[in-house]
């Protein structure tokens, strides 16, 4: 049953040290505010699951929240590397990061299997690829009817899924639209789910067959306007491409990264103050 609550309270009660956490959103609706709150509350030893780790996990990995990453593409889209992810993998800073890697199709299938309460998913991937040689999470099985050899992947069943959406109503029913990624599957595959939303409305006014997450599959709904920044929320605001570019310099060395996290996340008391500090920084640069 969805509780309408603050993001701070939701993360306090629902994200625990050592949890597996899936924060999803494919370019669109990435739950950055929630990622910051996890850093702010200094969660540790998380197993992070996400198809496209993106800046949100670069920040969490650099801040020392993660012990393992399950992913399929870890870059800064259209810009280059995720420097904190690379530093963790290449140099073990701030500590070593275990990787479990997949292809997008495979990992999205693993969420589908999780949502379906199946232990594994099947696909036509990976014959000829080296990925199965370096992963215990890719195996091959035979079709019991045709004898064909197919790839299998274990389902993803996170302790917590965290997503951002456009709207919720006062009961906690959630509506999202545009690029949907695997958010619905992540929520259904997870034991607990936090949803941050742009706004809470009296009526969702959804169209037929809309992507709706009923309140009774969500643990907490938190109103966090702008909570997907610097990604975007279809119908609300655009992607901040300049921030994605700026992140390359901020994250490239450890000191500038740590200074940024300290000023923007650890020393702010929430996403509203984060936005104010960020705005001040931009204003300073312009001056």
């Amino acid at each position, binding site marked *: 049953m969805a509780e309408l609550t603050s993001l701070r309270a939701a993360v306090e009660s629902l994200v625990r040290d050592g949890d597996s956490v899936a924060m999803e959103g494919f370019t*669109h609706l990435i739950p950055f505010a929630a990622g910051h709150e996890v850093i702010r509350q200094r969660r540790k030893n998380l197993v992070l699951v996400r198809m496209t780790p993106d800046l949100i996990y670069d920040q969490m990995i650099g801040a020392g929240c993660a012990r393992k990453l399950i992913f399929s*593409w870890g870059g800064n889209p*259209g810009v280059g590397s995720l420097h904190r992810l690379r530093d963790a993998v*290449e140099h073990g800073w701030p500590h070593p990061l275990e990787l479990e890697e997949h292809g997008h199709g495979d990992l999205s299938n693993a969420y589908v299997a999780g949502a379906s309460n199946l232990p594994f998913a099947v696909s036509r991937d990976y*014959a000829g690829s*080296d990925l199965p040689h370096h992963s215990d999470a890719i195996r091959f099985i035979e079709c019991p009817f045709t004898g064909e*050899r197919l790839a299998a992947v274990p389902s993803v069943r996170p302790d917590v899924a965290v997503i951002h959406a456009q709207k919720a109503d006062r009961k906690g029913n959630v509506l999202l639209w545009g*690029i949907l990624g695997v958010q619905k599957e992540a929520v259904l595959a997870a034991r607990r789910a936090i949803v941050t939303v742009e706004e809470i409305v009296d009526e969702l006014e959804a169209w037929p067959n809309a992507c709706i997450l009923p309140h009774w599959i969500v643990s907490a709904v938190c109103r966090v306007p702008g909570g997907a920044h610097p990604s975007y929320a279809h119908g609300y605001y655009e992607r901040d491409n300049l921030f994605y570019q700026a992140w390359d310099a901020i994250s490239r060395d450890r000191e500038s990264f740590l200074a940024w996290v300290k000023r923007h996340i650890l020393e702010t008391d929430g996403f509203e103050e984060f936005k104010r500090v960020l705005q001040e920084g931009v204003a300073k640069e312009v001056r």
Partner: protein
Amino acid sequence: MNAQVPFTAAEMMTVAASRLLRNGDVCFVGIGLPSAAANLARLTHAPGVVLIYESGPIGAKPDVLPLSIGDGSLAETADTVVSTSEIFRYWLQGGRVTVGFLGAAQIDRFANINTTVIGDYAHPQVRLPGAGGAPEIAACAGKVILVLRQSARAFVERVDFITSVGHLDGGESRNRLGLPGQGPVAVVTDLCLMVPDAVTRELTVTHLHPGVGAENVRAATGWKLRFADAVKETPTPTDLELDTLRQLQRRTALAHGRAPEA
């Protein structure tokens, strides 16, 4: 009519790649160079090409090039947007994609693709972004077209890691894997066009871009590269191709505050 104005090697590459798409193709588009080439095709000779992006848009017709694979412009211009898991299962693996259009960090003489690591997997010199949707595209798209800048660092005898399989060890080795797709049919670079040999499946240069010599290509390749018996020159970009590409990139720069790659 072919262009009288000068054009860059990057422009030639994008134009040459775009020409490989047909009007009826359903194209699964990687971000960056492939996206530029696919949209150029859509805006010139192949208005009916269907562009699918892995984030979920089907039939995207973006007015500007997306900076990332899930830009809002893709959703807004698409015929419909489905979940990412559906894109991979029903549309790519389902056999509905005729062409996969991919980039790569490293490829080898059999067009195997590495986007995982440079060096040893456990102790990489460089940790690359990883697979993305490429293994599935390489396995399931009807055919694959690769587009990337040519250099001896990128074109290596044998990739450090096969993220996404091309023609594996050549010959019949890919066929024996039983994958639905036929694999790479062309590699387009800023220097030339290569296709796999019909029998050995080794990449073979069939076209050199204008002003490029065989020695330039050899110098930018990490193995002893084969050339077709009669290597042709790639036709220079037409005015329409060049104008369309430049306008597309101007609109993109205006929209995003900077130009994306290619």
